[in-house]
């Protein structure tokens, strides 16, 4: 039932309008996307920087897995019309009592395994949608997903790490580093949160942390109890090296930075110090719910997140989408929010 217009990336930098018949609206919710946000992963598809095999396999595909929308019709009665909802990109197809939904190999993910949110309407099951407060800042809410990824990583950290958390270090002065250190400051007010980065102008935005270091100006005697690696790319190499070097024994190292390269790590020192390395990726429905609770309880968090919105671009035609991706690519920090008016 229903023809839906889907705006797919067909090859790097080229979007096309395509039409799909939605087979059945039974037990589905129809959401009109209103605010979307570009992620690095989208940018890699757009720039064609994934390997050709991956591009060939995944495209054509609608990009964007961070976004919110307005419920226009709900066959399930879960939502009211015009409810504002965050859309969860992770889509599990099975239940597992041990493995979380975002780590199940069978789970599908929007704008990775199937179409993302660049559509006239997103048709979703009700459990992949989470209601947002009516008066929420919609531009910030557009990247609820990104915040929920950090919330998820911090939850894993809470359950895995030992109790001594005097000083926690976050490596990476990009969006993930910003959001993660902001959440850590909020959730661990007694811990000293320290950020390690490269760019002065980015680091100047981290006013809420206890200390800021450039990675080549770290004092010799500085120690940390736990670390979050939010660097990614080839930079992961030097970041993990530095972390292993200055972390206290039995500390945890959360890996959040995505790298296209195999990263060599000093296993001898991991053994000697008894370190825990663990990966964190994506998020689940529970993480979304927790993120929205944090938004509601801590309005200050929202205003800090407003600070990293770099571009807000209204999308009325396909050219605007290209413009938004180019602008996002040329900004070295911050989020690009798309007001979806296509």
């Amino acid at each position, binding site marked *: *039932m229903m*023809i839906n217009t889907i705006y797919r990336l067909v090859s790097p930098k080229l979007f096309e309008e*395509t039409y799909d*018949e939605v087979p059945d609206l039974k037990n589905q919710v129809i959401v009109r996307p209103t605010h979307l946000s570009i992620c690095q992963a989208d940018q890699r598809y757009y720039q064609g920087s994934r390997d050709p095999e991956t591009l060939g396999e995944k495209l054509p595909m609608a990009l964007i897995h961070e976004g919110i929308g307005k419920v*226009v019709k709900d066959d399930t009665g879960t939502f009211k019309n015009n409810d504002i909802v965050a859309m969860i990109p992770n889509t599990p197809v099975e239940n597992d009592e041990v493995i979380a939904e975002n780590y199940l190999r069978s789970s599908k993910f929007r704008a990775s395994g199937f179409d993302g949110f660049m559509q006239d*309407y997103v048709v979703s099951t009700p459990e992949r949608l989470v209601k947002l407060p009516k008066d929420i800042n919609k531009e910030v809410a557009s990247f609820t997903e990104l915040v929920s990824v950090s919330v998820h990583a911090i939850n894993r950290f809470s359950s895995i790490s030992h109790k001594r958390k005097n000083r926690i270090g976050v490596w990476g002065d990009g969006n993930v580093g910003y959001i993660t250190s902001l959440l850590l400051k909020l959730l661990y007010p007694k811990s000293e949160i320290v950020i390690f980065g490269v760019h002065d102008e980015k680091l100047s935005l981290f006013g809420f942390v206890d200390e800021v270091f450039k990675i080549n100006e770290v004092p010799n005697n500085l120690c940390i109890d736990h670390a979050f690696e939010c660097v990614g790319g080839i930079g992961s190499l030097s970041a993990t090296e530095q972390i292993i070097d200055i972390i206290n024994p039995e500390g945890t190292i959360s890996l959040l930075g995505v790298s296209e390269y195999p990263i060599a790590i000093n296993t001898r020192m991991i053994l000697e110090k008894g370190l825990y390395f663990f990966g964190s990726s994506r998020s689940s429905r529970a993480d979304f719910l927790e993120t929205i609770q944090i938004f509601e309880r801590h309005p200050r968090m929202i205003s800090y997140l407003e600070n990293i919105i770099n571009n807000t671009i209204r999308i*009325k035609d396909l050219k605007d989408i290209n413009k938004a991706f180019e602008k996002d690519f040329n900004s070295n920090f911050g989020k690009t929010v798309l007001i979806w008016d296509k």
Partner: protein
Amino acid sequence: MIFAAILAGGIGTRMGNVEKPKQFLLLGDKPILIHTIEKFYINNAFNEIIVLCPKQWISHTKDLISRYIDDSNCIKVIEGGNLRNDTIMNAIRYIEDNYELSEEDIIVTHDSVRPFITHRIIEENIKYAIDYGACDTVIPSSDTIIESKDGKFINSVPNRQNMYQGQTPQSFRILKLKELYNVLSNEEKELLTDAAKIFSSNDEQVFLVEGEVSNIKITYPHDLKVANSILKEK
């Protein structure tokens, strides 16, 4: 209040030798008309959706709607008129018989054979009909428009930059449209085949809503082939 009028009045003489009016032909797995109605059905701005079709097709249209659309209470099928404007006036008569109208109430009129209409186009029609009293959906003309009064020689070649192709929806404040229509002579009614023209020839503003090239009207057999192939492309 906001109403949608789906104009399925035509009997599709341009569609070649087909038995059914073109709005009943299949696009994908469903009649074109159903695809079009769905776009309005899922938009909760509308108080009621009125489908206007030839008398002999009313029962069939009702059957189709109840077969394909679960909760069709907000969809009413009534008889269209001879001309496009008669059809719209039938819709307005129905609305007046069933609702208490005020100046702000609007009607969004749409061709039943334009199933690729998007959410934005519908939303902007509602917005600008409220803001300006009338609006029409158009795209810039890609071809040069030639005017010829006798069909043999050119009378004029208007500047293409000022030319647009009309699509639908066309949306209006209901009472204003009725007021303008009722003072027309029968001759004028024959001449003013387009409801937006009734506004503009009375010096009333009609706002241009940006359409989409894909918002095609399935008029000729060729169009249906195009529509079916763009729907199935992956």
